[in-house]
């Protein structure tokens, strides 16, 4: 991974409000994530955690405040290819069949501009990404012939092929078989060790506890906890049927505090 200039944070939100149309979903959020951190964005359904991630990706408009990605305001980051994205989709396949190679190759396009074709470097990156998620032997098979969990791994490979500095994933483990969850954990551990910043939106960090170190709990569009993942586990580990938001662990953090400082990733992984 190329180190980012100036040591600016990978993600910085300042009093940010994100929503759809004119309706704010996430309001007045301050959050700073340093390079190389592995962060879980936790919260129940409807808490606003996905909207927060979509705001970072430019898929949901920033209605107020500032959102910076890799040192640039979200709308003005020129090299969007530096950000990888794994959407919350259970399957890959469109109407027309496509092979694993074809789907993952799309990950390289963003960095190629409008007309340049895939070269040897790109093909190598694609092979590498597919191998990383353990699907090297399925490279030229139609994606639709893979299991749901394997298809999610294809989407992860597509994001990895771009060799992003910041990888944003939306519920990568939801509805995925145990083998695929394990494979995903291994991949993310390696990617994180290589210096990539990880931001995983999930309602359950369980399968990725070995990888993710910091937790940000979103509740009713605000951050209710920010700290070590272990501290958030008891509440966030519960599923959507957990009690009222007051039950979520809030430790040493008040909503009216203006900033949340960056916490470097805990070492010793």
């Amino acid at each position, binding site marked *: 991974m190329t180190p980012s200039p100036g040591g600016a944070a990978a993600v910085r939100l300042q009093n940010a409000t994100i929503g759809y149309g004119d309706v704010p979903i996430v309001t007045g959020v301050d959050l700073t994530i340093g390079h190389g951190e592995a962060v879980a964005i936790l919260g129940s359904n409807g808490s606003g955690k996905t909207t927060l991630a979509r705001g970072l*990706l*430019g*898929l949901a408009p920033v209605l107020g405040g500032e959102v910076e990605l890799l040192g640039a305001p979200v709308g003005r*980051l020129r*090299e*969007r*290819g530096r*950000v*990888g*994205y794994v*959407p919350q*989709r259970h399957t*890959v396949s*469109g*109407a*027309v*069949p*496509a*092979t694993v*190679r*074809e*789907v993952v*190759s*799309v*990950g390289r*396009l*963003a960095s190629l501009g*409008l*007309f340049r*074709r*895939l070269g040897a470097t790109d093909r190598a990156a694609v092979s590498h990404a597919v191998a990383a998620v353990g699907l090297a032997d399925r490279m*030229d*098979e*139609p994606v639709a012939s893979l299991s749901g969990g394997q298809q999610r791994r294809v989407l992860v490979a*597509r994001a990895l092929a*771009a060799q992003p500095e910041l990888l944003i994933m939306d519920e990568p483990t939801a509805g995925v078989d145990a083998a695929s969850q394990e494979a995903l954990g291994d991949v993310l551990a390696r990617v994180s060790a290589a210096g990539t910043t990880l931001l995983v939106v999930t309602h359950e960090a369980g399968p990725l506890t070995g990888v993710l170190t910091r937790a940000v709990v979103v509740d009713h569009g605000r951050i209710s906890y920010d700290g070590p993942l272990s501290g958030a586990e008891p509440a966030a580990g519960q599923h959507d049927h957990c009690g009222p938001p007051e039950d979520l662990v809030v430790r040493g953090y008040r909503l009216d505090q203006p900033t949340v400082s960056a916490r470097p990733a805990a070492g010793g992984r």
Partner: protein
Amino acid sequence: MDILEYGFMQRALLASLMVGLVAPAVGIFLVQRRLSLLGDGLGHVALTGVAVGVLTSTAPVAAALVAAVLGAVLIELVRSRGRTSGDVALAVLFYGGIAGGVVLLSLAPRGQATNLESYLFGAITTTDPGDLAVFAVITVTVLGVVGLLGQRLYAVSDDEEYARAVGLPVLALNMVLATLVAATVVLSMRVVGLLLISALMIVPSAVAQLVARSFRQALYLACAIGLTVSVSGTTASYYTGTPSGGTIVLLAIMLFLLVSGGVALREVTARRRHRRRSEVHAAHPHEHGRGCGHPPVPHGDHVDYDHDGHLHAPHLTGAGVHYDEHGTHAVPAAPSPPRGGQ
């Protein structure tokens, strides 16, 4: 081949060749995007262009091209601004297009070439050399753009949200695709008619997606199918005296039914064979091996296990091991043993 002796048939066949090649090359992206009816809608819009062309005595083909491209750009702009009202806006645009065309054409002075039917259902034999030149330019342009931007168009058609998140120019690419559709509509207008254009874009792709394994394969296959049905449909229409457009589309649909029937049959037999196999084996759900109680029997290049008189051949797949029936032990040279696993 007496069919090639006539200049008008030579031009007709050339036109159908180009249309058959181009329509699926664009249509496959619409199928992928689940926007199959966009071509249909732009066909409606093109009719207004034709009418304007006829009324102002300018070339109807060029006027149709302008109208369809404008319509295409407008549609993409509407689509990119929220979808709920977009649906209605599209309907208004599409039906406005055909209504405008019909009304404007009726205003044309007598003696003008106002044969509405030839635009709606095609009149391939009226293709003149000038048309052919325009068609050739459209063909080369469309195929060139698909060759150049095909992978990006695939990316946007496959997962628009992802494309936007990683910074691909989604709106621009969608407009390029819509413009290609518009150009194809105008190209196909003469051959299959405005009402049937969508069929030639969509049906060959629908056939291809049934059998292809990759997107690239599907694209090439769709083009080959489009070319074949278009040229053979035009040829058939010459001998049967039927309209070329309808004949081509019926041929394509026949092929679709045939192939989907074949695919369905293959799935049913594969499922039945597998069920039969698993029922036989369900009686003793364990993995055969040394000391499992079922004697090993060498069978060609592998070892079967004798289970109550019939042979089980282990078949290792990615999902684990299952057992294929390899005939009965009583008759060691089992007649044509069913093939394993796949």
